[in-house]
């Protein structure tokens, strides 16, 4: 089992969610995060004083999938989240030791 963490542009969340739904991904966890990479921050102006804000709002999606699905999920997210401009985000793939469904106590792939 693998965990896929995708950092994407907030306005792309709906597209990514629908694309993942269409390929049969049944659940996900999202959070609003801030960060920066190659994309520079933006400018804010308050009473003439200009500030460069480094941390840009992004959405982080976390999904746990069977190892065989990883490539398809990555492709789906990339396709849905891409604008071609700098700042589209990153995807991380991590190993997952165990998954437990709290209600029933099921473990492993059954619990995803």
């Amino acid at each position, binding site marked *: 089992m693998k965990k896929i963490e995708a950092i994407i542009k907030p306005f792309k969340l709906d597209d990514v969610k629908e694309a993942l739904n269409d390929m049969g991904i049944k659940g996900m966890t999202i959070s609003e995060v801030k960060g920066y990479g190659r994309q520079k921050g933006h400018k*804010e*102006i*308050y*009473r*003439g*004083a*200009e*500030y460069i*804000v480094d941390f840009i709002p992004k959405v982080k999606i976390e999904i746990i999938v069977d190892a065989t699905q990883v490539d398809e999920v990555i492709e789906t997210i990339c396709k849905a989240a891409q604008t071609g401009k700098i700042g589209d985000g990153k995807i991380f793939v991590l190993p997952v030791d165990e998954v437990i469904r709290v209600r029933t106590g099921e473990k492993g792939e059954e619990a995803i």
Partner: protein
Amino acid sequence: MNSGDTAFMLVATALVMFMTPGLALFYGGLVRSKNVLSTIMQSFICLGLISLIWVFYGYSLAFGPDIGGFIGNLDFALLKGIGLTPGPYSDTIPDLLFVAFQMMFAIITPALITGAFAERMKFTAYILFALMWSTLVYLPVCHWVWGGGWIGAHGALDFAGGTVIHINSAAAALVVAIVIGKRKGYGKEPFHPHNLTMTILGASILWFGWFGFNAGSALAAGDIATLAFFTTQVAAGSAALSWVVAEWMLQGKPTTLGAASGAVAGLVAVTPAAGFVGPVSAIIIGLVAGVICYLAVLLKSKLRYDDALDVVAVHGVGGLWGALATGLLASTAWNPGGADGLFFGNPKLFAVQAYGAFATIIYSMIVTFIILKVIGAIVGLRVDVEAEVGGLDLAEHSEAGYTM
């Protein structure tokens, strides 16, 4: 006694009262969230503190029988002799109502200064400051202009308090900002306004209340109140627009805070002129105020003093422009009880306006400096670094404005 005037002045007085909480929200939204309550409190507590001072001796020192053109005496202390029949300052409303109306002006003036030292002054020091500054600066200057003192005697025009309130508080604000020093991190870390929607709401309440402030200064529900009401609206609107246009041209974006700041700048600038100029003059006053106050804000960041919420740029520059503009644009065609300005053939008025304004600036700056030195020696002006970093809400009031 006139029931129409009395009804109007009761409402106008309540409108001016509402400006102080409006100012609290205006300032509160501009600071960081950890200081929102301490900033609001500095304005709000004036509603308590200054009300009492006003009754005990404030009204008497400002409007009591004159001593040498400088200050009133204590004949009216504890409002002795103030009744419900018309008094010396108004023929058609109860004397006590005039006392109440003027009380609201005395309340908001020290609150205006708080923007300069936001996010770093001890509350005990602030209370002492409000008490001493009101007593030693506001009451004398109020007397000079309106209470039978020397500036009024020279024929200076200050319809609703451009000199008494705005120039006076801004001169003090500059001194406090310099004496108390910059906020920790000033110029290194950004100080973002934490809630601009709150600031816009506050500015809107100020604008609304300002109709009471300016139109009410006519002390009667009639022609001059109507003139002041109208000039207030068009000056504020013009300044909101011109500030936004100026920043759009210079910095590329029209900001909401610019519109709100411009409106306040226009309200400040039209305050001394409101009942003495016509509508077109008021538009000129507003358009100029929006641009020069915006430029003054830009200049501040070059001069590197930390007037946190731009009291000097908005109230000082706007107030000074308003006082001088009254000397240019006042017209007896609109108000026969006023005077003609420079543009209407009377250069003397312009000179008198400048004289009164600069005398007020000098007096306010000197006495404010002395007050700060005294308070600094007694209790200290600033919170310690730990309290400043953690926020004044928690350190000074044991409260938080927002909980997660």
